[in-house]
């Protein structure tokens, strides 16, 4: 009987848990993996708190939660897409599009806020759908498709911005309140993030769509032969990625207040990184949105710490990349161990 080392210890525990509390039954393996990522997050928190007096202050923790919210929300969609062995590189440009469209409409054209937000979200969803159609139905490699949409949408962003004075300041109290207010001792933006993650977790665990995502990512051919509509699942995943980017654009608007060209640049890579730090398997079919949330948190803590420590912007990127590399290595050590046994 082949039992990979990573799973051995967990077998009786998993079975027991399943028997005692069926509702909390978890994807096997990801439970252990999540524990590993949580430990890493905890370890980083401990080290950062010990070496920086400000790091663990209430104000700074709130700050981190607000800082990661945009990344975290974008990463939800990225997780779903990557579970399908795809990738969406256009999310950064869509984040900007959403905030540009929303602010241009509401600030410069005096469209009611609700309509402006609605338009931004619908437009983001539409971009996601275009990605979906091109990858799922026409069958072009997702990296090519989304790279192309990235450039197109980026151009669109610039056009709209240039027609609106190259930057737009959003002073609507709704957005200020998102940034300033608290609900139950948590910043509003953090609450929104958590709620979206809860929704995503339910979507992935408790709906046929979520199960089908794992199935298609695990074995697309077998999914088709199990009667799953593989194309629709892929299509929906990219649509979700677009919508998440749209919502993240609104959070970004609340955070920066002033929309300019480079507010979301490079966000697609941060999102992919957060997903990977969350331990998602690039070969598809394994990973979870909650792991991605932890991944985004790790990402956010590292960046925040480096800012607190006054690293110059030039060093910051290199050091943050280096720390993330270490995190990914640590997370994957266990997995490589069990792959060897399996061959």
């Amino acid at each position: 009987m082949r039992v990979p080392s990573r799973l051995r210890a967990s077998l009786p525990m998993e079975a027991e848990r399943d028997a005692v509390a069926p509702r909390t039954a978890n994807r096997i393996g990801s439970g252990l993996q999540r524990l590993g990522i949580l430990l890493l997050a905890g370890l980083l928190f401990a080290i950062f708190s010990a070496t920086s007096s400000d790091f663990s202050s209430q104000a700074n923790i709130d700050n981190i939660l607000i800082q990661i919210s945009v990344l975290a929300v974008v990463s939800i969609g990225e997780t779903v897409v990557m579970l399908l062995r795809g990738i969406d590189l256009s999310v950064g440009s869509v984040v900007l599009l959403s905030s540009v469209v929303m602010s241009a409409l509401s600030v410069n054209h005096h469209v009611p806020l609700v309509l402006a937000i609605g338009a931004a979200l619908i437009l983001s969803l539409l971009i996601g759908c275009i990605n979906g159609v091109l990858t799922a139905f026409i069958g072009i490699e997702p990296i090519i498709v989304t790279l192309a949409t990235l450039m197109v949408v980026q151009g669109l962003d610039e056009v709209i911005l240039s027609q609106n004075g190259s930057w737009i300041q959003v002073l609507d109290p709704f957005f200020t309140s998102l940034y300033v207010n608290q609900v139950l001792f948590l910043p509003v933006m953090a609450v929104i993030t958590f709620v979206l993650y809860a929704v995503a977790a339910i979507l992935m665990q408790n709906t046929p769509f979520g199960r089908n995502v794992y199935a298609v990512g695990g074995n697309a051919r077998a999914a088709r032969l199990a009667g799953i509509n593989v194309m629709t699942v892929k299509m929906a995943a990219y649509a979700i990625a677009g919508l998440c980017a749209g919502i993240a654009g609104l959070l970004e608007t609340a955070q920066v207040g002033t929309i300019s060209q480079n507010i979301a640049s490079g966000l697609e890579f941060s999102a992919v990184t957060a997903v990977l730090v969350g331990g998602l398997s690039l070969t598809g079919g394994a990973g979870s949105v909650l792991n991605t949330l932890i991944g985004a948190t790790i990402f956010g803590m590292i960046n925040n710490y480096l800012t607190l420590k006054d690293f110059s912007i030039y060093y910051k990127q290199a050091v943050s990349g280096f720390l993330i590399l270490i995190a990914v290595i640590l997370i994957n050590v266990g997995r490589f161990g069990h792959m060897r046994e399996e061959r």
Partner: protein
Amino acid sequence: MTRSQVVTLLEDSVHSQSELAVPILEMKGMTKRFPGTLALDNVDMTVRRGEIHALVGQNGAGKSTLMKILAGDYTATAGSILIDGRPVAIQNTRDAHRLGIGIVYQELSLLPNLTVADNISLGRETVRGVVLDQRALRNRARDALARMGIAHIDVATRVGALALPERQLVEIAKVLSLQPRILILDEPTAPLTQADAERLFAILLNLKQHDIGIIYITHRFKEVLSLCDRGTVLRGGRVVSVFGAGEMTLDRLVEATLGQKSELFFRRNVQHDATRQEIAFAVRNLSVGDRVRDVSFSVHRGEIVGICGLLGAGQNELGRSLFGDRDDVSGAIDLGGRPVVLNSPRRARRHGIGFLSDSRREEGLFPDMRVDENVSIASLGRFLLARGLPFIRRRALRQRTRAMAQRTNIASPALVRPIRLLSGGNQQKALLARWLMLDANVLVFLEPTRGVDVGAKNEVYRQLEALAQEGKAIIVVSTDIPEILGISDRIFVMYEGTITAVMNRDEASEETIALAMQGAHVDESA
């Protein structure tokens, strides 16, 4: 000529008497412990020079574990390995390679996007300067295939474009081109046609002459009897019998693997009475590309129809077309008296058709998903909170999944494990449970017992019988004649894309089926 020269010469051709006595491979006290299971318990096995040694046992008996230790994939918990009487340490696959151990795995290890030539030379490419010497690679590959008597495979083809039997031949050619001293073959004939299998046997018999030790793993006892010199039988991680030359018989092998004497072939008890049953589905003038040509037949409720033929006779494509997996289909299909269009598996599923593929790993399993998730994946739509409310009623889903697992005898602790960790037999039972759960009315099974041990085989047969009794219409496509003979009410034999013979089970025999498969007219032979 000096004495030493003579000895050298002798060594080149035939080994001296004393050296012959030293086995080429000895494994002593091999033990492999996984937490909770003892996969191998003090296993001894000896392979002599120039013999084909059968390694027999049910799935999970420890055959694969033992061979993986030899190949350097696993390290043994205890035990020693001697090659030519000298103890060796096999820590990784490179060690095994260096020691001349070559292994043909059941699951192919070829890279689909590389050509046949590239695959055969993978890891030992010939270079000219810094570029690959393509001509040398192609020649080597052509030689390797020619040595096996294979001329019909173009070495410049992408492996992914080859059919399964051809891939298997390439895999064998690849391993043979490494010129191993100890050759391990794990179920090599499973995907092969009879002609290819016989070609392989001839090659193996030829290799024997060159003092190679061959370990031959198979579930097909007839091959053991005709091909192998000696045999070791494993059961539950232990050696239960070692058969010497001339000691093996079918009964003894079956007895040793099962641990009890049993009927070799499954025979259905309950017969189906076609006259009283309604037609479940009918096919008229069905053609699938150029593989199936103008086929018409009908299947009754409660009936099992076995379709057999040589590999490539079209039975596979016929089966797939009934599940909407082919887009080059013409003709009409009536389901329960109403014409249906089956242009996608999803459509077929909605019409209550279930399907078991012949390549379990590529087309059936979601390897990292749990067994219960693998079982329930096709039925999720039936466990929603309400129409338009796409939330799964998890408790109900779990109960139904468990019931299906119980029905197919899957142990319930296994339900929460990733399905890739299960044996082939248990994986197949899980896939069967997937369609039981959907309560499909028509079931199309391709090679339902391929790569499955004797115990699980009987399990599958019993399920088929039970399903037929419930009134399902079942089509079993198989190249295993005894299997077809044992489970079918009616037998269709296909030859070159058409159904050339339809037999009732009472009038069919292994011989009549085999003849029809070769294209002989049945009435002539009868």
